[in-house]
């Protein structure tokens, strides 16, 4: 029997997901590589888009699409991936929820370009912004057009499986690839990860979530045994799908939420915001004035970047409202 074909396609991504693949323990990686046929993986081998296009429709057993959908090229790749594959897996937080690039949805394409090429103090573009079409030595070059709104993969094409994380946890990648080579794929729609939040697997001691002071991770050395949130460190673990083995929390770092919302949640950020608002200042709730509540909540620095770091495009918010000029 022929080995199943797999493809690894890159959208709006930092390619960190790729690195994770290579981080797989050699025995897993080599075992899998020996049982599949890679038909497209531009990061690792010299594939061109034409190679992917040349594959007959539906011949690829599994395509891992990493990154969000942010420009015409991403969208084209997403559509081709869908067309060529029996199974399409959203690989990593960007592909599953929009990820970090999704935060661009607070502005428009123009706002994004202005910030990146003109306003940002670090840029050296001298006022030059990318043009869609430019002529170099008599050759007309085009670059893909950037969209106003960043989307997750399933907002562009139907997706069969999701493997969240930034980067995706090695165990879960192993699980997904092993499922493919053994022909034992889970039902469509499956999300690799736990059905519970991170707190379920986290073995820190949990007592009372009634807190009133929040601290940045640089402001104190956390007790390694005790729940970070109960120490006033904004850990997104309670609102985040588990299954990653909580490496960040083990290192005394808070959970950033890259595994996305839990199965029943429709909005990870809103869930955490609502939970935090419920417990913050709880012990003196009846005496709190509106102003005091504002002071409490203002302790959250960069609320959008905290609550919606990875999930803005698939949240109820989706993007900032565009106002007509």
């Amino acid at each position, binding site marked *: 029997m022929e080995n199943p074909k797999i493809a690894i396609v890159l959208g709006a991504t930092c390619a960190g997901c790729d690195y994770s693949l290579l981080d797989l323990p050699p025995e897993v990686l080599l075992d899998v590589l020996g049982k599949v046929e890679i038909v497209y993986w531009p990061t690792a081998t010299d594939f061109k888009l034409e190679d992917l296009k040349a594959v007959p429709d539906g011949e690829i057993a599994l395509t891992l699409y990493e990154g969000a959908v942010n420009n015409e090229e991403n969208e084209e790749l997403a559509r081709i991936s869908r067309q060529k594959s029996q199974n399409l897996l959203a690989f990593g937080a960007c592909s599953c929820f929009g990820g970090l690039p999704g935060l661009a949805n607070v502005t428009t394409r123009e706002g994004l370009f202005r910030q990146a090429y003109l306003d940002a103090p670090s840029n050296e573009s001298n006022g030059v912004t990318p043009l869609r079409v430019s002529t170099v030595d008599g050759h007309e070059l085009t670059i893909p057009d950037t969209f106003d709104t960043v989307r997750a993969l399933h907002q562009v094409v139907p997706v069969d499986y999701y493997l969240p994380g930034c980067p995706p946890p090695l165990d879960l990648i192993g699980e997904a690839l092993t499922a493919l080579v053994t022909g034992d794929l889970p039902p469509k729609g499956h999300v690799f990860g736990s059905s519970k939040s991170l707190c379920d697997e986290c073995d820190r001691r949990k007592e009372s979530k009634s807190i009133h002071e929040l601290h940045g991770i640089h402001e104190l050395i956390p007790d390694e045994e005790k729940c970070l949130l109960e120490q006033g460190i904004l850990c997104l*673990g309670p609102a985040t799908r588990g299954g990653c083995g909580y490496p960040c929390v083990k290192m005394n770092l808070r959970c950033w939420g890259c595994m996305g919302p839990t199965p*029943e949640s*429709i909005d990870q950020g809103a*869930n955490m915001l609502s939970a935090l608002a419920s417990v913050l200042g709880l012990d003196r709730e009846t005496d709190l004035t509106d102003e005091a509540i504002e002071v409490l909540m203002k302790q959250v620095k960069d609320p959008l970047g905290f609550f919606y770091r990875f999930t803005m495009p698939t949240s109820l918010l989706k993007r900032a409202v565009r106002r007509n000029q």
Partner: protein
Amino acid sequence: MRIGFYICHCGINIANTVDIEEVMKFASQLDGVVVAKDYRYMCSDPGQDLIEEDIKSLNLTRVVVAACSPRMHESTFRAACEEAGLNPYLFQMANIREMVSWTTDDKEAGTEKAKRLVAAAIRRVVLHEPLEARRESVAQAVLVVGGGIAGIEASLRLADSGKKVYLVEREPSIGGHMAQLDKTFPTLDCSACILTPKMVEVGSHENIELLAYSEVKDVSGHVGDFRIKITKKPGYVNASKCVGCGVCTEKCPVKVPSEFDMGLGVRKAIYVPFPQAVPLLYTIDRDSCWYFQKGTCRICERFCDVGAVDFDQKEEIIEIQVGAIIVATGYDVFDASKITPLGYGHLDNVITSLEFERIINSSGPSGGEISLKDGTAPTSVAILHCVGSRDENWNRYCSRVCCMYSMKFAHLVRERIPEAKIYELYIDIRAAGKGYEEFYNRVLDEDVTFIRGRGAQVTRLATNSEEEGKLVVVCEDTLLGIPRRIPVDMVILSVGLEPQKDAAGVARMFKLSCSDEGFFLEKHPKLAPVATATPGLYLAGACQGPKDIPDVVAHASAAAAEAMAMLDRGYVVLEPEKAVISEETCSGCRICLDLCPFDAINFDEEQNIAVVEEVGCDGCGVCVSACPSSAIVLRGYTDEEILAEVEGVLA
């Protein structure tokens, strides 16, 4: 999905501002709607029959009624569905009266909004699941909070019918404001004479457990099964030993102003508030007792023959279970010192009505003698109505009792000082009650000068010799159309009735709503004046709004009757809209545990998940919105159902 849609005209209430035809046409085109009908009054029998017949003949699986607020008729239509064999929770109501027709005169806008609410309801109802209400038995006891005439009356009515009553009063004695009053209008019955027999009955009734000098600390549970925590404050006198001889009070060296006498008389640090107090149990006021404040004295202990004084007494927490609660926490009087021009607090002989009640009372601090600060009897008295009432600056409402007690004062002054000049300064005379107008006429014949005008200022600044040494009341006589200055010896300020100072805290504890003025809100101003929005929780007396004694007694009896009916039925129906925690998705993060106002969430250490105790759950949704992993669902209010509504409104 086979949805039946019905829209109510509510006479012209809805039909005048909503195009019924158009909304019906709109609804009939929505997904799943198989029939759309209208009727003048959907809540009437023929209206309900319409629904029932369609459920049977058209095999409807969902019903939506666009009519009034679900608070009015949701139960009516649910019952109709059930009658026809459809689970009552497969019904949804769109409120197009309170939320639409009563908010606008613009028919076009009203119709548009009605359509959106209808679309929301129809999208939502599709997602409804059949639910089952539960029946629970009712604890055969009632908590009555407050031992004024309202609480006394309610307790006696209940106790006489064989119900166990816990009557909690925070003062050392029951009696409330009524015990402080001298005579009652219009019959001039002695207030104490008619009240004390009832107090004694409360004290000795086998079905009443009187918890005086106690306060309710915590309320949890629900109708039929409220769990109450009561703090019994230490009075440092052993109730089972004290015989009420009073030697301790006689010997106590500490004198402090008596609260009961409005600070006009004195009491000792160990005291009973007044001679007819029930329970007749002496209490040591910690804040003024020398032993507690300075560490020495204990004279009372030395003189107590029966050894009842117990300085080691501790606060005690009592836990009880009751099926119903009657809140009868009464009123406070308006603080007259807030209106500086009226001189209260800084001019001698300007007193409030409640102070005058004590002065005129023969067991009061002056033995019933009306006298000025210098000991002489006043030759002229002005009684100022509406102090703090009917006043945009203070309370807009009429306190209902002041006109009558003010005229009672005029009568009592005339009785004691026949030659006195008596003035009543009023805005209108409100004498709407049995025998009240007759009393007004009687006082009119007693040589009392009625001046139609609100007293604006009380001053000692004389402008002529006649005013020298007098209090001058400045007012506008609105009948004569002239400003007047009336020199008098004594001014009585007829202060209005206000909510108790801690009413907001009490409201929070019992989960009551308050009206704008701060009085507790009844379920319906006309048809449910003693019930509240919380089942099993009733209001009695002036905590619901200003009332005179007969109205309080009637109100309290009604509250007792409602509680009695509920207890006698023996069961309550508990709505199924409760929080449910999914074992599959709860990660045991413990965020919900501290939040539940009903303490209905427990933690299962073995499974590492939180569990809702369904009977204790009130369905408030606090835990649902707090759960960071959406593992808690409120039945009947799922995210999907709410989002479907939002989408319906926005579609």
